[in-house]
């Protein structure tokens, strides 16, 4: 036996020696006392894995884990047939369950998962919901047109659609100069990163909402898309009315290509869930919902990352880069990048099973 060491303070204590096996009066207790050492060793390993993952477990123990788990599992099934000791049965059930969660636990760490995510998992998930992306895109275009037409018919709609602040000069009746000024660059960079952070938090929140609302068969997701794009349509009408359509599009495209794309994806992911729950095909509703939900979650991780990019673009290049052409170039190249990444980048699936 080893002398007590520092490691025994951190849960690596020596496994207590069982009571004298021969002293047991019952066969089932002999059975238990003979195997108790293995159970306790398994419990010790499992406990450390639960506490800190694989780092706290050395190789020899890791190799022993499956064997110990099977020993405990077979002990449990034997004990069920031969023992009436409830305490032991309960202990074994809990031990086998805990060990099962570790043995069949996630094999990939967060880092491994992210690697798989960037190297194909994300773009594959996006391609898998292509139909929903098409529908969401159509809905977004329709929303823009609706917004435009509504405002054109009745100016009051502008105030209903666009949440205007008191000092905002972007209202119907504004002069061309006033509107142009809102598209101009900032003189200083102060405050822009704080602006970016709050933009990101807000936009990512909206995107997550659009996704989560998909649970109600996708309808609220679509409504959210329509509403947001109607706002855009109304503003486009305003700027186009003063002959600033191209400038506005350039100003918007810097971050808009990324942000609107991300909103499109989140709406589509939400609708994907709603659609698969409404039309599960030959799967059960729960199964269909689970599959589409996990697929949507991958898309959503990407959407949050895209929102980070969009917020950076919105806060810095859009406020600092002036020319219409250079704004279009930035926005256009990001759009091209996303499209290429999602639809042209098709690496082979990294095998789940080695």
């Amino acid at each position, binding site marked *: 036996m080893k002398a007590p060491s520092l490691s025994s303070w951190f849960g690596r204590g020596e496994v207590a020696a069982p009571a004298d096996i021969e002293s047991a*009066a019952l066969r089932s207790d002999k059975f238990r006392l003979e195997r108790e050492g293995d159970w306790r060793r398994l419990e010790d390993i499992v406990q450390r894995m639960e506490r800190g993952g694989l780092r706290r477990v050395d190789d020899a123990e890791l190799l022993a884990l499956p064997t110990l788990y099977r020993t405990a599992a077979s002990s449990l099934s034997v004990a069920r047939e031969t023992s009436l000791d*409830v305490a032991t049965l309960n*202990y074994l059930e809990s031990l086998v369950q805990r060990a099962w969660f570790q043995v069949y636990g996630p094999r990939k760490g967060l880092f491994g998962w992210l690697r798989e995510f960037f190297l194909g998992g994300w773009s594959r998930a996006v391609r898998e919901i292509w139909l929903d992306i098409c529908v969401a895109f159509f809905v977004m275009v329709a929303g823009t047109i609706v917004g435009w037409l509504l405002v054109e018919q009745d100016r009051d709609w502008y105030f209903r659609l666009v949440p205007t602040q008191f000092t905002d000069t972007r209202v119907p009746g504004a002069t061309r100069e006033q509107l142009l000024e809102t598209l101009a660059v900032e003189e200083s960079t102060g405050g822009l990163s704080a602006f970016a952070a709050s933009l990101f938090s807000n936009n990512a929140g909206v995107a997550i909402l659009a996704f989560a609302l998909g*649970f109600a068969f996708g309808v609220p997701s679509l409504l959210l898309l329509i509403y947001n794009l109607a706002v855009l349509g109304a503003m486009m009408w305003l700027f186009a009315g003063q002959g600033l359509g191209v400038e506005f599009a350039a100003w918007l495209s810097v971050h808009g290509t990324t942000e609107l794309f991300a909103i499109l994806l989140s709406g589509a992911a939400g609708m994907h869930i709603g659609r698969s729950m409404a039309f599960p095909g030959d799967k059960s509703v729960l199964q269909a919902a689970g599959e589409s939900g996990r697929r949507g979650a991958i898309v959503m991780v990407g959407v949050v990352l895209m929102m980070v990019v969009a917020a950076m673009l919105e806060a810095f290049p859009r406020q600092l880069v002036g020319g219409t052409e250079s704004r279009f170039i930035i926005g256009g190249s990001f759009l091209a990048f996303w499209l290429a990444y999602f639809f042209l980048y098709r690496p082979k699936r990294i095998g789940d099973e080695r």
Partner: protein
Amino acid sequence: MNTITADTPNQAAPPVRKEMANKRERTLITPEGIAVPIVVASRGARIGALILDFVLLYVGLTIIITLLIWIAGGLFEQVVAGAEANVAGAGEFLFIVFVLLVFLARYGYFLIFELGPRGATLGKRAVGIRVAARDGGRLTPEAVIARNLLRDIELFMPLVFLMVAPSGEMGSFGYAGLAWLAVILAIPLLNKDALRAGDIIAGTWVVEAPRTKLADALSTQGAAKGTSDLTGARYDFGDAELAVYGERELQTLERVLRDDNADAISAVHETICRKIGWDPGAGDERAFLEAFYAQLRAKLESDMRFGKRKADKHS
């Protein structure tokens, strides 16, 4: 590979255990063919865990924000007052930390903890439950992400609607939203696995994660081995005397012996003596019960090996 079977009565299982939990008990068949019982977490435990998590989050955020304010001194109010205004670099940095922190607290806390090896947030750990994949497979990161993204509409949105709807600000839209969200909130009450909307789309469920310690073997202690330590008396029971009880009574006896409550021991001692026609003495109750327990168990277990089981005294 793994299957979950519905709650079917299992003849092999001991007849009475966790009677309260019976309705929530499911069986998970591992790849080795072992039936591992799994108990779906009660709704009360889940609400408790959620409240604990929010208290933790709130306290943690308050501490960090207080720290930020302390660092920033007077700067902080300035920053909050005008996020877009020209603020000094340090204040701006603190503001960014603040915004990202709130975002992380809202979405990251649950994610990071449920992705860990315990599959549970701190609150869930405290009440002894964890997240698991419903099909018995691995709990994947995307499942955890999916179930936590829906928390927004299950929790935060209803709160907003609850506050806004009565004021009538949003008109009938507010009430419609409230009604719809009431439905979403009611989902966990309407299915037997207590799945919330997030669990449904992620293919997960929340189950109890008991951490039972191995108790000492009773038959190696005291009079179970033969004679009483106290009086040196030896208790021997005949087949007829042991035949009055079954497994259910054996388990009750085991519980009484493990709890070691003097009142309960003498009460049970008296009951058993009356039942088998012995004259209840006094002073050596525990030794009597230990011997009775060991011999009753030996008899029931040897019957069990021949395929005979006696569930309780009536059978």
